[in-house]
């Protein structure tokens, strides 16, 4: 187990270095510096040069990379845009993103698995066909478009604020009402973010389930006289859910990618929006660091999925 962990961690570390180098290469080959973005007649070119120097942008590319690493680990990496430590900027937002993603993930898993299981149980039934079609709709719908329509709908229907993490006029709210308000603001974006994953996962669950119930051990269980339902839900489900555990790791990149759009649409103060703004402003330190951190999240997600798989599947023992 320990040697497995060590091996995995080493592997993750190598991957990480690869990630940081690739993102650095991509960013530095781009046109458009971080400072030249202001078109203010009052800024003189001399000042811009001085600022480039202050940010080490006059140094060769490879040096900038090592400077970035060094600064990141000493906490002295500052955003071009507002001069704040990059880690601090990310830190104050990452919780919000994780919260949103966690809720989305919870929605995905708590709805997709039952949906997939039930529609596999009644394969080719009306419900199965409807679900299948719904799944494809979910996979095909442009999230931001749906978000706009839903926001518009709720605004017209309820006249209650939807954007941001909370309402701003909460005078006279009790604790319960504040909680409800927070849930409301969380639920809408999380639901829309969840749609894609929900569709994919329920589809996956369904086919996994269908595959499992063709297995020999299902027949064995039936031959033992185990009732059909129990066979399906006890012997089938557990086996079908094994590969789904690993999907936990695969869902993360999609969700984070989706955060960029959804956080912008719902005015949600998370790293997706920070990333987008940093891209717009060519805020290299922030873009680099978010790239790296999201990659770390993905790596961690895969790692956790591996560990979970080991717990769930007795056949796997890490050596």
């Amino acid at each position, binding site marked *: 187990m320990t040697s497995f962990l060590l091996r995995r961690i080493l592997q993750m570390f190598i991957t990480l270095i690869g990630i940081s180098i690739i993102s650095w290469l991509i960013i530095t080959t781009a*046109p*458009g510096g971080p400072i*030249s*973005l202001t*078109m*203010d*007649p*009052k800024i*003189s*070119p001399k*000042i811009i040069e001085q*600022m480039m120097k*202050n940010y080490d942008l006059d140094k060769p590319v490879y040096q900038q990379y090592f400077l970035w690493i060094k600064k990141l680990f000493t906490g002295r990496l*500052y955003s071009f845009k*507002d*001069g*704040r*430590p990059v880690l601090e*900027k990310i830190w*104050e*937002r990452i919780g919000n993103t994780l919260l949103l993603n966690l809720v989305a993930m919870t*929605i995905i*898993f*708590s*709805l997709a*698995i*039952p*949906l997939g299981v039930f529609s596999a149980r009644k394969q080719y039934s009306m419900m199965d066909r409807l679900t299948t079609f719904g799944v494809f709709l979910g996979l095909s719908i442009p999230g931001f478009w749906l978000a706009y329509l839903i*926001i*518009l709908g*709720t*605004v017209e229907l*309820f*006249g*209650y*604020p*939807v*954007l*941001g*993490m909370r*309402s*701003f*006029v909460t*005078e006279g709210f009790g604790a319960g009402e504040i909680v*409800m*308000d927070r*849930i*409301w603001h969380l*639920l809408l974006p999380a639901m829309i973010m969840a749609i894609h994953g929900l569709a994919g996962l329920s589809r996956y669950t369904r086919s996994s389930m269908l595959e499992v119930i063709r297995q020999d051990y299902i027949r064995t269980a039936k031959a033992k006289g185990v009732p059909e339902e129990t066979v399906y*839900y*006890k012997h089938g*489900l557990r086996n079908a859910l094994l590969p789904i555990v690993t999907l936990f790791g695969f869902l993360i990149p999609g969700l984070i990618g989706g955060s960029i759009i959804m956080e*912008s*649409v719902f*005015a949600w*103060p*998370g790293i997706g*929006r920070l990333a987008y*703004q940093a891209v*717009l402003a060519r805020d290299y330190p922030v873009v680099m660091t978010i790239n790296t951190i999201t990659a770390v999240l993905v790596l961690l997600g895969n790692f956790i999925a591996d560990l979970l798989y080991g717990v769930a599947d007795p056949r796997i023992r890490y050596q």
Partner: protein
Amino acid sequence: MKIKTLLFIPPILFLIILGVNLLFVSQRPPQKVNQLIMSSIGDASFLNPILAQDSASSDINSFVFNGLIKYDRDLQDFVGELAESWKIKAGEKPEITFFLRKGVLWHDGKEFTAHDVKFTYDKIMDEKTNTVRRSDYELVEKAEVLDPYTFRVTYRQPFSPGLGTWGMGIIPKHLLEKEDINTTPFNRRPVGTGPFRFVEWVTDEKIVVEANPTYFHGKPHLDRIIYRIIPEVSLSEMELLTKGVDSYGVSPHQFRRMSEIDFLKIYSQPALGYTYIGYNLKNPLFQDRRVRQAFTHAVNREEIVQYVLYGFGKVISGPFPSHLWYYNPNVKPFPYDPQKARALMAEAGWKDGDGDGILDKDGKPFRFKLITNSGNDVRRDVGVLVQRQLRELGVDVTFEVYEWSVFLKNFINAKHFDACILGWGLSPDPDDYQIWHSSQIEKGFNFVSYKNPEVDRLLEEGRKEYDVEKRKQIYWRIHERMAEDQPYTFLFSPIGMSALQNKFVLVEDGPSGQKIYQPIKIEKAGLMYDLTRWYVPTKTVMEK
């Protein structure tokens, strides 16, 4: 418990939460609170006036900090803020002496003095400070503290825009002396002298300021201001409709609908800026003035204002916003006149020789690329219309939109463009030296490479002259010259519109000390000029 039952639990739980939540949301009563909720597309970056560049930061800074002086409500003159009065001594080396207000307190209780002003100036001039404001003060020879309440600056040469630069927010020396100004936590937790005290800044979500009880003009009437960050205009509109936002910048197409909403009031005021088509004068196509004039005649600017801006804009004839004193009303905008345009083009040698509908000269057709930046709907739409209208003149225009930084770096700054649609936002001072002086072609903002010796001379004179009447004559002359030269096709100066919830009133002290509630008015200096006197009465005092 059976597994099947277990599987049902999460979806049911989810539906219950959703249901209860929808119930709650549909039952919530509207509230009326003595606060103002504003919204901005972007988050602030530095709550420090010497570092801030973006409008969100500037907005907050204007609540928290004061300059020595500020523009009056008509943007014509200055009134004192931290300076009670000032004195200008003209001459080869002019001096401005500021007499500061006594007893002004920083939000932390320390007293404000001339040392703070000097400190602010020093920090701006410090090379290590990442500020873009340094060029405002480059002509300052020295800045001295004469006594705690007197501050004097001496200029190397006459520089009339210099006075306006002292509207810059003053930062507290005692808190920043030992800090790295670029990275100090102060930039997120500012302490100023202004009417509102900083309370909290939740990144990308909101910035909250509250009334400053020790404000030297008296405590503002509003309890607090919440500045929300909503990254998309159409989304702030939705928040406005749910009363999650109190004020909102109305786009022209929304005006009609907004003005029909009973809890809103719409205000409009010409903006301090204009939109133009800039021609790269290094490109031989545009070097002939007649071509540029022809283009201006060929572009139906009235139609653009009418349809793109729904009438909320004014066609301009030169490089100034039309409602300010330095705009020369005698210069009339070129009328839309396709005939004249064609004649001018013919004069310049451009005729449709081969009958393909495109004008040509020496066998070469008139063909160019018009570009603008993405993210600005008005410019995008103007571009499409201009492309069509020039096509009717017989010019083959391709229109392309680029993302802002690519646009700047690859095209504008590289002077690698034919023509572009852009806009300038200006300060109330008429000095346009950086945009039009030929010395600014290489590394300044004269990216169209406009060069006119007379304009150069006038621009230099204009910055040296302190007398408003004389300055007016100078800038009127500049205006005339530029209207002839047409280095840009000056399109229009838009009219800005704001929607505000009609619960706000303006408080005035009546003759016998009672409070009088007035409707809120918009000034040339903007809707928020009297923000400290805004108030939300508990009972509905006035209805629309």
